[in-house]
Structure formats: structure tokens, C-alpha cells
């Protein structure tokens, strides 16, 4: 393949600002208004300041304002609302990987020499529809003719992967659930998270609610027993229950990217993007494997090669845990742990905790921070920016110099994946 040797950028790219809106159910706010909130947060993060007039282009990752707001041109509306009228504003869609795909366009915009200073991010307003319609809206991320036609919902496809995974490796549903417990523990420390609550916190709230209503008070021995309670954690798509799934969330996030040679004009502490990969894949039934996300492996290989590093060099990562099984597959696809028991038990054994050997999803992940589908990929960069600069507050990874980090963002059920690698020099 003579034309696929080169995956090097013509020009280095640095991240000098990053911000996000509060994630959650944001009644009364539309997409562009959520994006303004992320933009203001980003502006405040640029150490030496940024004048909006100096930003040359905008890319906005978004899945479905068309469905959720009956609104096209979301990128233009975001540009108008943050004060970028006159600049190019383009929406980028790659399902739930839209946010990172938008960042990739921004990277190329700078590396191409066309721009020096660009804004890239994502936004999604999802809570406008009732649950049934949301299920159908999300199913439009599958192949509607060949997958949804058979009854597959979006959680259903991940559930089918979870089932295949357990069948192949003999791992247990509890292994997946421990991923959720770990990510909620992290999310409890993130004020912008949809659920700023650990599973223990949530259990406490449920008990309080039962008392208030005069219902019998549950007596769970631990978090796993709570997660095994079909009343409080009902099945969504067997074997996955409610707390195996990320929530339906409104939110936005964005990052300010600049050419490497001018990065110090904005901050003394820029984060350099040194690797980026993206790949697409077949519908789930069209793949050789049902227990891994091949697109993520390809994207990771590209990113590692471009960055000249390997999995062992990565100090922390934000990975795509739209469902608990997704994080288990991710840590194997990225080469952090061996597929099977090792990957499945990484969370339960504390290896992926904030103080573990490979901290994963310190932000709370999609599971606890929330999953506004078009914004999630961009929000991963926000966490990386803060952790690498030691600004993650109560959830800062302890006792470690995070000079190399990674994001892993999956579109739909693995039909797209984007992996990117970041360096602090």
C-alpha cells in the first residue's frame, strides 16, 4: 500500500484551552446555549487569554440535532452564539465519536497550514424526547436496514457483545458492574458530571426515598447487591441493566487548538497532540469478532505509530464506556490489559482506579459524567487537559507525573473509533 506510509503531521498542534458545560438534564437550554457554556469555560482556562476574534475556524461534533431539535446547521448556530460569525463553522458527525472526529478536523486544519488557531468541540441536547423516542433516535446510529430491522436497539448491540464476551472468556457480569462502581466513584468528584454521585451515594438516596414514601427499606449488603436488585437496577437489554448504561445527557465541550510554534503565546503549559487515528467498521454482524472493537485497534495502532509510543507509555486514559462492557473491551483493544479475565477484572482489582497502575476514566467516564453523544469525545480532552496540567482537583491522579495520556472514543457500536495521544513536555 504505497500511499499509506505517512501518518505524520506537517505541523505540530497544541491544546491550550479546554472547557465543558455542566452535564446533565439541562432544561430550557438548546444546543447552541450549551455550547456557549462550554466556550466560556474554555476561555477561562486559557492562561494568557484568548480573544474570540483570533479564532479562525470552528468544528462542532454532533449526532442528531436534526432528530432532537429538528434543527440542521448546529455548527453555524454555535458560531453565531459564541461570537464567531464570519468564520467557517462545520458540523462533524461520526455517531458517538463525533466530538473527537471534530477535534481531528481541527488538528488537520492547523497541520495543513490553513489555520493557526481553531476551536473544536461537540454538543448534544438529548433530553427533549421521551424514553421510547430516544431509544429509536439512538437506534438510528445502527444500520437501520440491516440491524435495527432485526429489533436491535443500541444498548442491545452492546448487550450482545457483553453476552459473547462472557460466553468466550467465562467472565461474570459482576466484572462489568465493577467498572460502573469505579467510574461513579470518580464522577462523584467531578462537579460537571451528570451524576456527581458514587453508587453508594445513589444507594443512600434510594433508601431515603423509600423511607420518605413509607416503603420497606432495602437492606443491600454492598454495591453489587444493589446492582443485582431488579427493582432498582432493571434490565435494559439482558445481561445489561440500567447502571451498565451511560445516561441520556445534555452537554457540550470544546478545546482550543493552536499551531505548536505559537502555543506559548497562550500558556506556558500547553498539551501537545502527538498521535491521532480513526477507523470505521462493518455492522456488528459483519465483523470477524464480537468481543472486541476492531476499529479501535486500528485507530490505536495509527495513534501509537504517529506518536512513537506504546500502551506501556500511557499514564492515564479516558476511554469510551458508553456501557460497562465497552470499557472492558477498550482496555484490551488499547493494549493496556490482555483480553479476557485480565481486562474484565482490571476495574475490580483496582488497576484502573485513580491510584491504580493505569487510571481509566478519572472524569467519571461516560457512565457517570454523562454521555451527550456528540460532545463526549471532546469532553474526554477536557479531562486530559486538566489531569495533565494537575488541575483536576479532588480527582487528580495522585503521585504521578502525567506527561503522556490517551483518549479513546467509539462511534455507535464500534462502527467508528478515534484514538488520540497527548504529551506534556
Amino acid at each position, binding site marked *: 500500500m504505497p500511499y499509506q506510509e505517512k501518518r505524520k503531521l506537517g505541523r505540530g498542534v497544541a491544546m491550550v484551552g479546554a472547557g465543558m458545560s455542566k452535564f446533565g438534564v439541562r432544561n430550557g437550554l438548546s444546543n447552541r446555549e450549551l455550547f456557549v457554556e462550554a466556550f466560556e469555560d474554555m476561555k477561562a482556562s486559557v492562561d494568557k487569554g484568548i480573544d474570540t476574534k483570533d479564532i479562525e475556524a470552528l468544528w462542532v461534533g454532533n449526532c442528531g440535532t436534526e432528530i432532537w431539535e429538528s434543527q440542521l446547521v448546529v455548527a453555524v448556530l454555535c458560531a453565531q452564539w459564541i461570537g464567531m460569525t464570519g468564520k467557517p463553522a462545520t458540523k462533524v458527525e461520526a455517531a458517538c465519536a463525533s466530538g473527537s472526529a471534530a477535534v481531528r478536523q481541527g488538528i488537520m486544519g492547523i497541520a495543513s497550514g490553513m489555520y493557526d488557531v481553531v476551536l473544536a468541540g461537540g454538543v448534544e441536547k438529548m433530553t427533549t424526547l421521551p424514553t421510547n423516542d430516544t431509544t429509536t433516535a439512538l437506534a438510528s446510529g445502527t444500520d437501520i436496514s440491516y440491524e435495527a430491522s*432485526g*429489533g436491535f436497539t443500541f444498548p442491545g448491540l452492546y448487550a*450482545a457483545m457483553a453476552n459473547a464476551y462472557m460466553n468466550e472468556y467465562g467472565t461474570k457480569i459482576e466484572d462489568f458492574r465493577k467498572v460502573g462502581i469505579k467510574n461513579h466513584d470518580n464522577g462523584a468528584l467531578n462537579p460537571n458530571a451528570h451524576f456527581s454521585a458514587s453508587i453508594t451515594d445513589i444507594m443512600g438516596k434510594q433508601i431515603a426515598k423509600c423511607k420518605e414514601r413509607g416503603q420497606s427499606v432495602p437492606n443491600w449488603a454492598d454495591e453489587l447487591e444493589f446492582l443485582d436488585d431488579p427493582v432498582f437496577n432493571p434490565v435494559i437489554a439482558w445481561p445489561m441493566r440500567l447502571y451498565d448504561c451511560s445516561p441520556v445527557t445534555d452537554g457540550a465541550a470544546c478545546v482550543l487548538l493552536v499551531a505548536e510554534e505559537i502555543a506559548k503565546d497562550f500558556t506556558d503549559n500547553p498539551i501537545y497532540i502527538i498521535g491521532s487515528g480513526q477507523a470505521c467498521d462493518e455492522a456488528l454482524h459483519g465483523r470477524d469478532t464480537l468481543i472486541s472493537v476492531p476499529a479501535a485497534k486500528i485507530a490505536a495502532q495509527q495513534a501509537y505509530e504517529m506518536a512513537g509510543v506504546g500502551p506501556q507509555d500511557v499514564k492515564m486514559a479516558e476511554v469510551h464506556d458508553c456501557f460497562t462492557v465497552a470499557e472492558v473491551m477498550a482496555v484490551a483493544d488499547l493494549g493496556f490489559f490482555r483480553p479476557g479475565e485480565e481486562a474484565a477484572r482490571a476495574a475490580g482489582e483496582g488497576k484502573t482506579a485513580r491510584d491504580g497502575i493505569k487510571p481509566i476514566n478519572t472524569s467519571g467516564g461516560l457512565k457517570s459524567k454523562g454521555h451527550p453523544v456528540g460532545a463526549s469525545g471532546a469532553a474526554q480532552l477536557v479531562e486530559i487537559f486538566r489531569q495533565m496540567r494537575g488541575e483536576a482537583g479532588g480527582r487528580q491522579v495522585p503521585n504521578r507525573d502525567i506527561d503522556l495520556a490517551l483518549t479513546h472514543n467509539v462511534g455507535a457500536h464500534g462502527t467508528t473509533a478515534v484514538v488520540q495521544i497527548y504529551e506534556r513536555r
Partner: protein
Amino acid sequence: MDERPITINSFEQFLTEGKLMATKCRHCGALWCPPRPVCNKCSSSEMEWQEMSGKGKLATFTIIGVGTALMLEAGYNRENPYCAGIVELEEGPKISAQILGVDTSNPENINIGIPLQKDFVQRGTFSFSSGLKKVPKVYLAFRTVEQK
């Protein structure tokens, strides 16, 4: 050999006739089911229709209580969930479909690998081409077969 255009529309038309059709690459012989017009192995667009036997086995599955609009309309819900699965055909390709004949209230008892046979479910109507009259829409399904 059927000369219908190699489209999703034709595939659906075949379903109404009780046929599960694949496309076969005339260049490298690869089989594609569900069908597609270009071979992803060798990039050839010389494809022809080939009927599948409809025999296969369960590659993976899930039981869904919160279904798509289509399945909600068909009467499925949390109390009456359905099974969606991926079926590996005996000819090799895998395909997604509703799985009939399994006990959806006891998913633990459904085993990956069980043999299946094609079946069809009728839901709503559609027309193959605007202007043509509407016909019942037929969806592919698979049903468990008695194991000897």
C-alpha cells in the same frame, strides 16, 4: 439467476417471497449476507444473487425490554421482551435478526451456538417503489429448531 438490482430494496422484496438472499462476488467468490453491491474483499462490483439455505446457529443475542418503535408497535415491552440475535449462517456470513422460539423470560437458558432456521415476520406495509401499491412488509427472523 435473478437479475434484480443489487439493492437493499431487492433484498427486502426477496424476503416477501420467503427467500434469504446473499450477494456473491463473481471475482473472488466472497459471499455477502446481508447483501451489498461492492465486494469488500476485492473491491469488485461484479456481484450476483445467491440464495442462502436459511440454516445457521446463534452467534450472540440479547433480550430487549425497551425496544425500537417497530417492536413497541408489535406489542413488545418490559413485561413481554423479545430476543434479537446475530446468526452465523451455514454458508459463513453472519446476519442480525429477531430470534423466535426462545424463552425470553429465562435468558440464562438460551445458549450461544444453538441451531436456527430462517423464518419471517410480517409487520406493517411498504411499497418497493413510490407509486407501486403497498404490500405487507416482511422481516427476517430465525427460529430455534428441535435438536435431535
